[in-house]
């Protein structure tokens, strides 16, 4: 079992002993609306785990290194895929994509949330989330 570094945000995600990741949204107690990322106001919002599976709603590839700030990733840049995944009937969540070739993603693909190491340009390492195809692509 890999040893996962601290999450990028404690309220955003958690990892269980086996390394399985859960993403969280928050339910507005007044309006019943699901809000993501979860706000910090516990009086008004209650954390709620998001479904782990969904379908790819759209995607693109980040082909150049984003400006820093805000980007805090390493100086050496590798393009990465980004997408939105419709998680059950909860929300369509944006995140990095992993597990397929950069041009191997298709709208409608079955995806699942997975933990990903995020190396910072300042030397720190954190755990973030990504979405990967449920069935590995050929």
């Amino acid at each position, binding site marked *: 079992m890999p040893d996962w570094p601290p999450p990028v945000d404690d309220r*955003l995600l958690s990892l269980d002993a086996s390394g399985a990741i859960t993403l969280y949204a928050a339910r507005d107690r007044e309006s019943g609306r699901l809000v993501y990322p979860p706000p910090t106001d516990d009086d008004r919002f209650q954390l709620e785990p998001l479904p782990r599976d969904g379908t790819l709603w759209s995607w693109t*590839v*980040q082909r150049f290194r984003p400006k820093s700030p*805000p980007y805090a990733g390493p100086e050496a840049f590798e393009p990465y895929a980004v997408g939105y995944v*419709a998680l059950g009937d909860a929300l*369509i969540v944006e995140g*990095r994509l992993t597990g397929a070739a950069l041009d191997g993603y298709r709208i409608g693909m079955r995806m699942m949330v997975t933990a990903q190491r995020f190396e910072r340009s300042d030397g720190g390492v954190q755990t973030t989330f990504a979405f990967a195809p449920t069935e590995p692509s050929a």
Partner: protein
Amino acid sequence: MSGVHIIGAGIHPFGRTPQRTGLQQGAYAVRQALASAGLDWRDMQFAYGGSDAAGKADTMVSELGLTGIQFINVANGCATGGSAMFGAYATIKSGEFDLGIAVGFDKHPRGAFDPKPAEWGLPEWYGDTGLMLTTQFFAMKIQRYMAMHGITAPTLAAVAEKAFDNGTLADHAWRREPVDAATILAATMVSDPLTKFMFCSPAEGAVALVFASERKARELGSRSVKLRAAAVRSRPPGSFEVFSPALEIERGPSPTVIASRAAYDMAGVGPEDIQVAQLQDTESGAEIMHMAENGFCRDGEQEAWIAEGATRIGGRLPVNTDGGCLACGEPIGASGLRQVYENYMQLTGQAGARQVPGDPRLAYSHVYGAPGVSAIAIVER
């Protein structure tokens, strides 16, 4: 309530002008607009002005003259120019004043914008992990639209090719060289499916428009167009906007759709009546989607429209006749007013080599930006 007319228009060339600050470009555009209307700064009773990143508009009175004018600064992000125009529209319509000016200008550094998560109410990790890029949003919006409505990559390229062709005909455009569709398609991919020639760049420039009441316009005998509608709308539930960590499952219309409907209602005309349109083209896909969001065609029909050249000068509905943001660049505070400037030039027959044939009378402009705001103006000669 008075009718509202635009009786003069001025522009500082878009692109890069190292020798002038943004404010100086703004003052330049004001002088051009006044000259076009045959008026003096002292004649102006009010001004609305703004920039996103190039200073406080009202300080240009030190260059233009300390006349004591009512000068209101406008800061409304990507709709700054549109909002300045809306201020002028409402001021004249109410009868408060009958002669004034709206000015928008900007001067951005090179390259993509670099937003800060906290200023957008977003957590740091969103920026840290490389999700906070406007280019990703535009790419993912058109990527899905292409899959849902059968739009192809060559159509994206055709939009950019048209923009650069039109830019060669516009004195104020930044990009004045044609680029063919094959080169556009084969260029460096920025964010799939969009290559570098399909994106506009932050730039510099300024535009000013002189507004007058119906009575004043008649009295001055100016070359004028009537502002039939000016509508600014923010996002409704379920719209897809830049910097959205999540979207609701139930999708809704865009701010453009509701602003557009409001503008058609106000003007008492429909999309079929419009003879020339300037549509927000942050990237080629945006122009395609905005054709449908503004009611000019149904989703997916753009593929055939563009193949037939319907949106070229001389086509059924010429779109972005000065090359739009793709050829002019995007100085945020000036961009929406540039569209109205272009429509003024087209309707008053002053557009020169890019003049839309057939003596057009009704023109439409649409600016859209973060975090989900659209401004529409409909003008008629």
